[in-house]
């Protein structure tokens, strides 16, 4: 049992290492993942400032920009990851090795969280510097819990998508591109999602973990309880349940998809 746990942890750390080290070595990644989202954040901040919107709207946008980096990473480096692994010739190597499959997913997720957190931190610091952003954290413990639960649910979702797209071809790449803008809209990344109406906001929250997480973070970190769709405590509970369900589902799905891939021969075929 102890040996199995040790092996699991070894694989998690080994796979996470690739991402953590990548964050330090590839300057172009850092620029692409921080500068571009920051420019989008800046654009919205200036729109709100030009309209004379309350100061907390700057915070809305900055929090949205931070969560966007995690969302983008989840889509392109979690959901799509096995597609890239196949392209690089790694997928076969992984699958013929004895590694526990969930450990591989978890390693990707944890490495990704560490890597993306540095980008998120840069966006936050740049926002403080350029926009003099101040958070008004009323419940620090709750805020931290919500942030952790949001990442848990988001990367749990990434693990599910990754498992689902395990043997997918190039079509999934285009599919994800098409969904990007609607998700940005429904995710309320740059505005309070309640503006879409309670029903639409709740529906988006049920589909996209970041919608719920962002809503709770805005309430707890910007004292914006009037713009929330649900109480942050309830949102924390839902996010935690979402995370547990996603992680469990990913474990089931990855094994099923691997079996299907071995039966159909799709594991060994090149991406279309």
């Amino acid at each position: 049992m102890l040996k199995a746990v040790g092996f699991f942890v070894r694989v998690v750390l080994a796979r996470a290492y690739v991402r953590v080290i990548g964050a330090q070595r590839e300057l172009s990644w850092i620029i692409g993942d921080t500068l571009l989202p920051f420019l989008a954040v800046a654009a919205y901040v200036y729109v709100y400032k030009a309209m004379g919107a309350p100061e907390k709207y700057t915070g809305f946008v900055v929090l949205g920009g931070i969560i966007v980096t995690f969302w983008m990473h989840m889509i392109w480096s979690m959901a799509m990851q096995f597609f890239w692994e196949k392209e690089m010739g790694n997928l076969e190597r992984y699958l013929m090795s004895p590694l526990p499959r969930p450990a591989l997913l978890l390693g990707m997720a944890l490495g990704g969280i560490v890597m993306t957190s540095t980008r998120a931190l840069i966006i936050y610091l740049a926002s403080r510097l350029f926009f003099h952003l101040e958070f008004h954290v009323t419940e620090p413990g709750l805020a931290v819990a919500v942030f952790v639960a949001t990442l848990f649910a988001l990367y749990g979702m990434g693990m599910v998508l990754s498992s689902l797209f395990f043997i997918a071809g190039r079509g999934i790449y285009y599919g994800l591109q098409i969904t990007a803008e609607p998700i940005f809209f429904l995710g309320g990344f740059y505005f309070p999602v309640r503006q879409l109406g309670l029903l639409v906001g709740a529906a988006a929250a049920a589909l996209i973990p970041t919608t719920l997480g962002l809503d709770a973070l805005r309430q707890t970190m910007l004292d914006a309880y009037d713009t929330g769709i649900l109480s942050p405590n309830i949102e924390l509970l839902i996010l935690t349940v979402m995370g547990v369900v996603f992680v469990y589902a990913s474990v089931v799905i990855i094994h099923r998809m691997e079996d299907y891939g071995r039966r159909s021969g799709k594991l060994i075929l090149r991406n279309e």
Partner: protein
Amino acid sequence: MGHILNERTTSEFSIETVKLRRVFRLDRRARRDAGKLLVALDDMDLQVRRGELFGCLGPNGAGKTTLIRILATLLTPSGGRAFVEGFDVHRETHRVRPIINMVSGGETCGYGILTAMENLRLFTELYGIPWRIARPRVERMLEVVGLDKFKRVRVNKLSTGLRQRVNFARGFTTDPKVLFLDEPTTGLDVHSARNTRDFIRQWLAENPRKTILLTTHYMAEADELCDRVAIIDRGLMVACDTPAALKKTVRRETALELTISGVEPPPDKWKRLEGVVNLAVESNPLEKVTNVRVLLSDAGAGGMLIREITDDGRRLLGLHTIEPTLEDVFIKLTGRRLSESEPAPTAGGG
């Protein structure tokens, strides 16, 4: 099940297949053949002894890679069974995977952002091997493949050839009991291919209880390296023996290599001439010639064949006798050359 397992584990065979079969359903990319079944492996019975360097020789599309992918647990058989070190590759993947590894020639793997050494470390971690055990192996393999000077260089800064060497090294760093080498020298220059073959032989000499299954379409490689060779064609094993014994089957025959004008396929009547055992052609459209390799049971039949060639309006541009090789064994058995890629036969659709 436990009884079967114990019985199998103590078997003298490191790899065994029993009526192993794999069919693929052709998808829309196959256009008019879409929906048909492609038989990649057809009731293959194979026994590889522990400590053996066993070769699977056949043209592209013969089923060699399918066989290796099944044994490496990446593909399930459509029928029959396969065992590695006594464990069923379909039902006992958790027992098979820790003791195998595979290297496919011409491929690279790992992450460009990591150094050669970090990549090799990563792949040993996936087998649960602590770094203190893996490190000496990694260091040695980097030396063997000539990458010791580049071990701290990021892989995306290495040439494709060097990256292929990292991939080759990866296969040995987990110290597998059974190693699958799928066309290991594909894409390597002559010098690197020679070093690769030397190392394969050396590794097995140092580890006499380990087994290597190697696929290749280079008959010289199979001849030089393998203790035994299975000749595979269209999913079927058409012969299996030591290279010397296989060549013995064509020792009495005379092998000729003819170069004739034109690229049109030769008529069947050439094959039917008395004294012609079999012949295989390879056209060269660039030079507008056809190379004909022919096995004769009677050297005198060569004259008749040349007469037929000239009667058909083709000019004989070159002729020389050759020492029969495994290629001639293949030609004798199949009527084709190893360099021809042959799609596996399709079965009825639906």
